[in-house]
């Protein structure tokens, strides 16, 4: 679970791989000619179908940029940010409030990062403060954002600022209805092609901010974008192993769009529900044993004991069989080792995204049929919300809704605790 499920995975199935935490992020970068054709055809249909409707709002948002709260005329004594965020779980960024600007630091932008990134978020209409030479300057609230990972999109949705998006990585994997509606209206542009970024078009588009993630390579296109004057935020929520910490990155996006109050309220509700569910799960009579993932060519990538997936399983009061393996990523295992430990396990979750039925699994490798969890119909896949292009909402809206993911898991492991819960992201592997 921690390991991102393969989006549109080919024979890889829903394979996992070691630096798992950011796999899902590339799903914005996926090109499939057939899909592209289909997408274009669909877009064509939509456009044709919408011809009768009135013209949509103009794309240029600068017309409305002087909206709420701009510092004009500027008064240095005014606190332009009366609502402030406080971080309870997330450790990957910090914020320092000043009257008309916020200093936000992303402390852990990528695995093994030796540098942090500082962002000077300056209220529109206010002067840029001096003394922050290393910081990227962003005028807030941002009006024109390019968000290259699907995980960023639910933030804008929840904060009612989908209008601030002008571009994404790729359309296909996106599940959010409001973002999809924007795509259908032709209000969004695509900036990724396969694994590569169309940096030139991004420069021409000159958004207020590009939200992305990075591996920290020296030849990373984002570093060139920064040099060219386009601010780039390395949103590193996937580096947080704790589900609530990951969800709390909603507040990072809130800092950009000045929606602190809303983010605080929403996250407080999420955290409260999550913690209530954890408490509920602890009342379970027994802790069923569980394992995750699937093998590829005999190698089984298993979530490590401190990973996102493992923490969710622990919070759902399950006995994760690889909880003893340190680390927050995944570990390549011999398929035999998995069978040796998990043959009699009670549950199997987060299988290959391609599988809908047990026959699919057994056809991929007949040895899957030997697992008791499969034989007893206790295999649950997190692919209930896969869109027609192969994008899995589990990796899009799941991270900001950890309480829903957890509720699913508790309902699977301890159905007596949540008898009325209807599974959202999960579905049983059909016999």
């Amino acid at each position, binding site marked *: 679970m921690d390991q991102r499920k*393969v*989006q*549109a*995975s*080919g*024979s*890889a*199935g829903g*394979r996992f*791989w070691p630096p798992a935490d950011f*796999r899902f992020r*590339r*799903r914005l*970068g*996926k*090109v*499939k*000619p*057939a*899909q592209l054709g289909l997408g274009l055809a669909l877009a064509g249909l939509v456009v044709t179908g919408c011809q009768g409707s009135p013209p949509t709002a103009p794309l240029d948002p600068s017309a409305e940029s002087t909206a709420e709260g701009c510092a004009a005329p500027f008064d240095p004594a005014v606190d332009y940010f009366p609502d402030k965020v406080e971080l309870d779980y997330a450790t990957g960024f910090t914020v320092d409030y000043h009257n008309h600007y916020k200093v936000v630091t992303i402390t852990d932008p990528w695995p093994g990062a030796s540098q942090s990134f500082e962002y000077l978020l300056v209220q529109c209409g206010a002067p840029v403060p001096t003394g922050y030479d290393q910081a990227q300057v962003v005028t807030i609230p941002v009006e024109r954002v390019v968000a290259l990972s699907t995980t960023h999109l639910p933030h804008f949705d929840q904060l009612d600022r989908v209008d601030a998006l002008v571009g994404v990585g790729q359309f296909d994997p996106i599940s959010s209805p409001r973002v999809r509606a924007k795509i259908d209206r032709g209000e969004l542009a695509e900036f990724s*092609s*396969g*694994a*590569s970024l169309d940096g030139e078009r991004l420069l021409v588009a000159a958004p207020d901010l590009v939200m992305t993630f990075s591996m920290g390579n020296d030849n990373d296109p984002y570093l060139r974008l920064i040099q060219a004057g386009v601010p780039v935020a390395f949103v590193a929520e996937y580096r947080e192993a704790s589900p609530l910490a990951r969800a709390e990155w909603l507040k990072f996006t809130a800092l950009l769009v000045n929606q602190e109050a809303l983010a605080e309220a929403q996250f407080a509700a999420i955290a409260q529900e999550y913690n209530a569910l954890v408490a509920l799960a602890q009342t379970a009579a027994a802790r069923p044993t569980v394992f995750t993932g699937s*093998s*590829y*060519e*005999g*190698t089984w990538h298993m979530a490590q004991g401190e990973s996102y997936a493992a923490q969710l399983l622990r919070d759902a009061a399950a006995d994760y069989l690889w909880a003893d393996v340190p680390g927050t990523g995944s*570990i*390549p*295992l*011999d*398929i*035999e*080792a998995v*069978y*040796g*430990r998990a*043959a009699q396990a009670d549950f199997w979750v987060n299988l290959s*995204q*391609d*599988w*809908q*039925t047990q*026959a*699919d*699994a*057994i*056809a*991929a*490798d*007949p*040895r899957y049929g*030997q697992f008791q969890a499969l034989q007893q119909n206790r295999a649950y896949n997190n*692919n209930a919300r*896969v869109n*027609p*292009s*192969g994008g899995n909402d589990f990796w899009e809206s799941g991270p900001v809704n950890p309480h829903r993911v957890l509720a699913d898991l508790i309902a699977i492991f301890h159905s007596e605790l949540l008898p009325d819960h209807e599974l959202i992201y999960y579905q049983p592997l059909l016999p």
Partner: protein
Amino acid sequence: MLHNTPWPKSLTPKRFDQTATVSGRLIHCGGLGLLALLVGVGFVASLALGSVAIPPLEVVTVLLGGQASNPVWGDIIWQFRLPRALTAAAAGAALAISGVQLQALFRNPLAGPSVLGINAGASLGAALVVLTGSAAGYGFSGWWSQLSLAGAASLGAALAMGLVMLVAQRVRSSLALLIFGLMLGYTTTALVTILLHFSTIEQTVAYISWTFGSFAGVTWQQMPVLLPVIGLGLAFSLLFWRSLNLLLLGDEQAQSLGLSMGLVRLYLIFSASLLAGTVTAFCGPIAFLGVAVPHLGRSLFRTLDHRLLLPASALLGALLALVADAVAQLPGSQTILPLNAVTALIGAPILIWLMLKQFRLF
């Protein structure tokens, strides 16, 4: 890069007569017997060793048809270890024979299954499946994509083989054929690169882990294809030892001694491609064994006689593959190493040592 490297002086066909003496034959038969024994030991050891510690006595019980005290152990031995060990042995032998055939055909000690573009063809087939297939999660379900990985890789290897054979019929020079095979390899690699460029990170990783090679992905379901093809290929190869010996004298001399060059060449390309292509389709491109094992055979048995070299290489290939696979499993730990890395890490030093010894460099 491959050059038309001449055979080292010490490997000239003079050595043929070693097998002519009775005592020489006995020694060689003994050597083959010893190797076969070692392969047997390696096979049993790979059944006994693995990530899950199973007491040796239990392994014997299971192999004799008994019930292990832990039923999971029985499954592990029958469903996981036995297919893996069989695959390793068969694949090792197949790659080695393929290497022997191609080195004889091209009279080039650097030739191996990869020079004909067979691996590259298989890789292109695999890349097409891994990098573009099963987009929606629906439509193509698991069995399709799994089967088609081996299927597509076989198809790619077969197409590459067909092309090479077509060219081989028209081009007489082995060197030109070698260059053609190399160029074919570059071309398919270029296509794979383009596919990779347009793929997601997880697809790329899936493809790259395929190129790591693995014997563990083969199940009983695939054995009815894998074993007969390799078995037939090996059996046929042994029948052609005389032609291989004649080839070492040079095309012209071989022809003057009654060898039908065209036929032999086609047969060798077909056989070598079939063996290597099948292995690549099921286990991924395992590059090292095919090139190195023939040299091991020549060094250990001090012979160029293919009547001896073919079985010796098959056994050595099987042994090396079994050992490499066992090491890659890291017995006792639950994690594993990439097979291709282990074959080279184990095989290369042995080969270097043997070569240095042969040339009396130390």
